[in-house]
């Protein structure tokens, strides 16, 4: 090959390296935070050796100080310990709810996208109907029917996020289905099933990872809202939403009780979003 051709017909210059692009400060912070959260979820005792449920009635309502970095709550429980131990609930709720929402979304979206016009029409109308329900109402009904608690709140949040995912998945699936590499596979003599499994589904589902990362943050926020309404985790469980809800009562005298759990909800959602977007960017450029 001559040097001239290399000049004229050159491979995209920067793209292959963009995957190894230097992370921005925000991404680094988000990654460190995510690491902290995962560590807190897996090994809470490493970060906070205390008992999240251990009461100390006489040490209640302490503002943040050297022994209690985030202060203590109405029963003298250490808020830092509770926030760290609560990570697992929030993360599990966020991940599980998103997984449920995505799974339902994948089933509905795939049905709609793959099984012909009648099914598509039906599923679409069904989704339209679900969209007419405010998300919180779906969750409320579900919880009132099956009783409050972490598990039902998780499923409820999952269900109420499913229509959104289903719509995105269907659109993605239809877009992938129309891509010319799918046609190319047909030309190569591949069967419908082979095409579905080898090309359409993988290419539809790969971007969902990013979507899921973004969704986890929102799921945590919604689950916290349910806890606030008294429909989520049961006190004294060290779940952030429940802590926040309990702390709201004392907001005028003990701001730290609701500030720190709230801060962690926001930080978790933000770091999930920042990481999700950064992965998205890298995947798109890579």
């Amino acid at each position, binding site marked *: *090959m*001559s040097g001239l051709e290399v000049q*004229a*017909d050159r*491979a995209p210059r920067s793209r292959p390296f963009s995957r190894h692009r230097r992370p921005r400060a925000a991404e680094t912070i988000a990654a460190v935070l995510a690491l902290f959260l995962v560590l807190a979820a897996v090994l809470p005792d490493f970060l906070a050796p205390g008992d999240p449920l251990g009461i100390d009635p006489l040490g209640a309502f302490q503002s943040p100080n050297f022994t209690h970095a985030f202060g203590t709550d109405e029963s003298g429980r250490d808020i830092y310990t509770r926030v760290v131990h609560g990570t697992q609930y929030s993360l599990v709720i966020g991940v599980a709810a998103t997984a449920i929402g995505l799974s339902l979304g994948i089933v509905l979206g795939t049905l709609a996208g793959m099984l012909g016009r009648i099914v598509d029409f039906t599923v679409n109308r069904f989704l339209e109907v679900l969209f007419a329900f405010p998300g919180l109402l779906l969750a409320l009904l579900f919880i009132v029917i099956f009783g409050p608690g972490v598990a039902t709140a998780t499923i409820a949040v999952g269900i109420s996020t499913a229509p959104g995912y289903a719509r995105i998945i269907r659109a993605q699936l239809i877009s992938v289905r129309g891509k010319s590499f799918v046609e190319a*596979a047909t*030309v190569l*003599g591949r*069967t419908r099933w082979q095409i579905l499994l080898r090309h359409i589904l993988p290419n539809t589902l790969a971007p969902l990872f990013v979507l899921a990362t973004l969704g986890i943050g929102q799921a945590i926020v919604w689950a916290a809202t349910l806890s606030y309404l008294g429909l989520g985790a049961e006190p004294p469980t060290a779940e952030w939403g429940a802590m926040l809800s309990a702390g709201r009562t004392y907001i005028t005298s003990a701001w730290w009780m609701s500030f720190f759990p709230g801060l962690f909800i926001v930080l978790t959602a933000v770091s999930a979003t920042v990481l999700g977007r950064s992965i998205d960017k890298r995947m798109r450029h890579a």
Partner: protein
Amino acid sequence: MNEAGLRAASTAVSAAVPAATVENLRVHFGTTRPSSPVVRGVSFTIAAGECLAIVGESGSGKSVTARSLLGLNGENAHVTADRLDLAGQNVLGLTDRAWRARRGKDLGLVMQDALVSLDPLRPIGREIADSLRLHTTLNAAARARRVLELLDAVGLPNPQLQVRKLSGQLSGGERQRALIAAAIAQNPPLLIADEPTTALDVTVQAQILNLLEQIAHQGTAVLLISHDLAVVSRIAQRIAVMHDGQIVETGPTTEVLGAPQHEQTQRMVSAVPAEKPRGSRLSPASRPSDSSRTAAVGPLAHGATSPIVLDARSLSKSFRRPDGTKHLAVDNVSLTLRRGTTLGIVGESGSGKTTTARLLLALIPPDRGEVTVCDKPWTTATQKSRRGLRASVGAIYQDALGSFDPRWNVADILTDALGNTPGRRSPQITAALSTLLDEVSLARSVLQRRPLELSGGQRQRVGIARALAARPAIVICDEPVSSLDVSVQAQVLDLLDDVQRDRGLSLIFISHDLGVVQHVSDQLAVMRGGRIVEQGPAEALFASPQHAYTARLLAAVPRL
């Protein structure tokens, strides 16, 4: 066309000063550390009423040069020059406000594809009136009158009706005229036309070039930016060939094209396929081992005698438009392809050639008619029996990148095409991959890369390799070289020619580019509005077109 209107538009032009003078222009991008410059010391002058063409392949720096004249290279650009004059006035280091006062007034810009270059949400009349609003004190009524005059001047019929239309409601040619009208609304002494005809059909392209030429005749200097030597040769008085950020050759059009001095110019000139005989090489030998054969040119087989491998009879296909009406995309099309020959199908956009390709590939069922492959039922066969025949029909696509699963690397793509599970490795597969890569002149190193990491030419080579993997008898190529630079196009066309010879392939070659089709085809079918208006041996058809449309098409093909 309304000559008077154009003249009216051009009264202010002074012939004495050059429209633009550029000396030692250098541009580089980057915020923190200076990257290597994209434009490295470019100098040229355009006289009033002159048409200068800057020609180069993608990445040569021609568009950046043009934008430097507008001060629109973006915030990251660092532009330096010894001299940068527009209409005799220095524009280096102008403030934003001063630049704005000049843009549209001292120079206009026409870009490729007016569908996106005109705001799709606004009526074209508004877009044209904008530059009047910005630079004149005309009131709304006067502006509206002037817009009508301008539209008339650029040859848009029924201006009163058109002003209220969106760019999306116009045809490609009409849009481009509207865009030109917007650019010349202020009679700028200089008009920069950056690939103004690239996405247009060949007949429309000719009209737009005529319009630009006319504008130049009225005294407006035209700086034409293009990758296509043939296109610019029609109207440019002088050509500057850009390569790697520098002007490597410049001179009057006839001199540059007649006796190209620089290697790059020669390469580009020789790569133009039109009127190069079937089987002659367009690119310098890329396979030294084959160089012996490049001398022995000449068609491999002659149509009339060899057996028919693909036969399409009376194909029709219609689609339902969104408003419910029927659109007959393919109307009673019959084609035959004989072994070892190439059947070219040429047509402008909307002629039904891509639908025909999809029918021939049995991706969509025809409403009427039938296709047989090697005398076996093809479109009428069951899914299952057709899958058995699929191996004998391959395809090459215009958008090579889109035709690959983005998650797969080249090895996966080719392993899959060979009929193995992607990711599987065995000595046999490795050997087969090597053979395939050799055949399309690709290095082993591409195997681990994804399509996104390949150049346009490499991608199309991988596409060809994939089509060949199953050892097909027939390959249907739908615009396989349309999105490639001309020298790369030349290499790919040569490669297709090589593999056709090596394997005795039968090709259907679909293109809008008559020049390319002329170069590759044994038989030729000309499509228009879903029908075949004329078909027959390529040489005969080019020599004496029977149908008026064919003749028009031929006349419009840009030649050197």
